[in-house]
């Protein structure tokens, strides 16, 4: 019995660790996919895992990379932030992946960041985020605040003549930062403090009656009012349902959202939401041959002709294309070589432009503003003429305005006031 206990414990402690047997086969290039397949974030992230599988399959059909096949290594960090760090470590040091595509929430990125920096690997992060970061080991293919929030506000102010603003968001860092930037921006444009209402709700907030009523109240002050929503994924459905039920029409109080895309709308009856807006860098409805091909390929891959595409999927598409090009250019999957090759890397995006990877690890993107249509798609009502380069540090936050992100000589730094020269 005692021996049994001892061996049971020893076995558990050591053997369990060894269970995750070391990887051997080196005739493939491994690509890590770190997206939650269970838990609260599975709702958004599973799709991205599927996109990556599709892109890798496609690349393999083209003959792989550097004469080797690509091999996708999928793990499930289960919407659990410490598990993200653990899985990232497993992918890098055990599976020896060449790069990792993954994460959705800011906290998951923050959680894996030290691991990527410690083990010097590459993460491609496909989601719009709050900025204020530029890691040597992360390529940010989603939008920075200057590629989403500010153009959207400009559009509302000029096209809809909005003068009164509700900044409603889920209480976490992305809405906080975005709203902070927007508040500073709006004030710099002469909006009075009493014309700005900021409201934060917890994750997964499902009872929106009071807040929608409050918005309605705020909107009945005789000035054109709009809502800028940074409400996170899950809470959007009940929010929009409540908007529709309380009869807030886009013609009265338009809502522009930064986290509501085709995937989220697929879960709602969009008829009452006609005309509410979203700002993204990609819409499924954009007419472009590359986009059409991508949609066709996606729907065939997922075997569902109704599945939609969305912005973070495009971000992975661009990120993956850039990575493969950089690997080819560098002739190796070595992290440092690939990183150098990434700078200035160009790739066709799905809206007819060519995105460029900047030395601050952010890419250039067009900004699109769309109105929600009855079929859950967006009707592009405005688009930037040129692509907007992503800015890591916002000029509207005093502390970050003085920082520069540039990973090439002489700066070699993600956030410095002076060049580092090495």
């Amino acid at each position: 019995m005692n021996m049994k206990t001892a061996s049971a414990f020893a076995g558990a402690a050591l053997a369990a660790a060894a269970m995750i047997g070391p990887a051997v086969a080196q005739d493939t290039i491994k690509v890590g996919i770190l997206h939650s397949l269970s838990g609260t974030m599975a709702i958004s992230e599973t799709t991205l895992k599927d996109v990556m599988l599709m892109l890798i399959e496609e690349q393999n059909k083209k003959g792989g990379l550097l004469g080797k096949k690509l091999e996708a290594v999928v793990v499930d960090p289960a919407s659990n932030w410490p598990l993200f760090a653990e899985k990232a470590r497993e992918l890098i040091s055990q599976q020896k992946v060449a790069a990792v595509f993954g994460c959705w929430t800011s906290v998951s990125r923050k959680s894996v960041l030290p691991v990527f920096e410690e083990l010097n690997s590459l993460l491609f992060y496909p989601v719009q985020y709050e900025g204020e970061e530029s890691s040597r080991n992360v390529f940010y293919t989603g939008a920075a605040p200057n590629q989403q929030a500010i153009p959207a506000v400009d559009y509302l102010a000029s096209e809809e003549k909005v003068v009164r603003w509700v900044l409603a968001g889920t209480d976490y860092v992305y809405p906080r930062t975005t709203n902070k930037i927007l508040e500073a921006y709006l004030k710099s444009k002469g909006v009075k403090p009493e014309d700005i209402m900021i409201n934060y709700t917890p994750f997964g907030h499902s009872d929106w009656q009071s807040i929608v009523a409050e918005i309605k109240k705020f909107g009945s002050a005789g000035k054109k009012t709009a809502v800028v929503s940074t409400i996170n994924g899950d809470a959007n459905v009940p929010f929009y349902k409540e908007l529709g039920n309380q009869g807030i029409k886009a013609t009265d109080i338009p809502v522009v959202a930064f986290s509501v895309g085709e995937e989220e709308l697929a879960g709602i009856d969009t008829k009452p939401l006609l005309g509410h807006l979203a700002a993204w860098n990609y819409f499924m409805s954009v007419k472009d041959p590359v986009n059409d091909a991508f949609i066709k390929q996606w729907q065939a891959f997922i075997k569902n002709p109704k599945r939609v595409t969305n912005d973070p999927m495009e971000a992975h598409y661009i990120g993956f294309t850039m990575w493969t090009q950089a690997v080819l250019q560098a002739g190796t999957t070595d992290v440092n070589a690939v990183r150098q090759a990434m700078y200035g890397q160009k790739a066709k995006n799905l809206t007819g432009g060519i995105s460029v990877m900047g030395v601050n690890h952010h890419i250039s993107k067009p900004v699109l503003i769309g109105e929600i249509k009855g079929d859950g798609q967006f009707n592009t009502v405005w688009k930037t003429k040129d692509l907007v380069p992503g800015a890591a540090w916002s000029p509207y936050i005093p502390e970050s305005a003085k920082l520069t992100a540039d990973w090439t000589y002489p700066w070699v730094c993600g956030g410095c006031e002076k060049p580092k020269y090495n």
Partner: protein
Amino acid sequence: MSPTLRRIALVLLLALGAPAAWAQDLAAPLQALVGDDLAAKGEAMEALARTGDPRAAAALQALGDGRLFQRKSDRKVVIAATTRGGALTDAATGAAAGSATAADLDEANLNNRLRRQLSGLLGSLTLTLGDAATRIAAAESIFKTRDAAALAPLTAAIAAEKDARVRRAMETARAAVVLVTDGAEAERIAAAATVGARGDRDALGLLLQAANASPPAVAAAAREAAATIQRRLVMLDAAQNVSYGISLGAVLLLAAVGLAITFGVMGVINMAHGEMVMLGAYTTFVIQDWCRTAAPQLLDHSLFLAIPLAFLFTAAVGVLLERSVIRWLYGRPLETLLATWGLSLVIQQAVRSVFGPTNREVSNPTWMSGQVDVYGLTLTWSRLWIIVFAAIVFVVLLFVLKRTAFGLQMRAVTQNRAMASSMGIRTHRVDALTFALGSGVAGIAGVALSQIDNVSPNLGQSYIIDSFMVVVFGGVGNLWGTLAGALTLGIANKLLEPMAGAVLGKIAILVFIILFIQRRPRGLFALRGRAVEA
């Protein structure tokens, strides 16, 4: 834009007097309506409005309602009976054109600017056309747009209007226009009073707008009227918050009442309860999905189908769980917690595998959409129905437990299993049925929640903690306690929310529950007695 509109209005007035003598070709502007060029669309709308043709009016109306389509097969512009298709009418000729579903049709899109333009056009156009409801809607849309151009047709329409309700709406709309248009001060001051009489938030918004940008006398009148409304609204606000609280309470009650049976009556700490709710919501989705393809006419009534089916399905799952797992764990409540937790993981992942991880769309039937004003209180139909539904579920459940043979057996078994068994009650069957009842009720709660929340595999997780709080707060094993608990927590939450914000409000509620349990360690409706303490 204003001069143009004024011209249109004039033309319209003329046109409305005479029959549509000039039969114009509507085809070209109609085609523009379904095109992609937004600027052309705007012009086409005006052109159509200018014709004054009833067919043009119908087409514009349909455009506003989202019922104007282009048929994919022959590019013909058609008006459908509903936004999802149905019987078609040729927009140009007014002739019947068969029927089609949304899949065969391309919808004519609008953006917000066009939508506003359209509602202005429609407002003037339909002021004297159509039934009372349409005319009121037209007046309402002028009230919102406050387009000075609408003043003349409005005045004319008021003179001709016989229906007192419609006339009142029109007069308010006219007052709204007058209030914001430069004109005689006396008239504007009178208008402020008329608008003030309307007494709602829209009126308040208008008055405040006028108060900011008017000659002093008018501004003062507007401010006064606004102040009256504000006083009224302050009182309404409290009532409104209570109504939100009742509605949240109803949601909590629905979510928790099934748990009150499985946990409260049977003593099973059922962590899979939320998943039963989720399964109920998915049943609704499946049924709506089936309706959409197989029986679109049933879609609006699909909930009536979903309620019994969700009950049966989740009850069946409940029986399955009870027979396979839970029956081995009676009398070990804490172990039921572990087992049902495991089950909840399995069910969640199973749903994720079958339906995918993303939200599925469950639409609100028309009778659950929109809102109703009761003495200035805004109540949305979906919430109202959920309150009614929760009440019905509660009463039925109470009846089942208190007045039926099954309820009697159930209480007998939970109170003294051995005794019940020796009296010939088949306790195993009663156990299974009780668990099935609890699960089934959770399932129909899912049907209701599908109307206001995400239908995703995570649905259940977001309600499970709240459900436990409600049951424990109310007092385990007492349905009335669950009712009182749900309503208390719902109302308290909604009264706190405007003061403290959603997060702090919720924290305060949790702290309150913790402290309350110290005062009454067995909940609100605990029985005090010897048996309970043992």
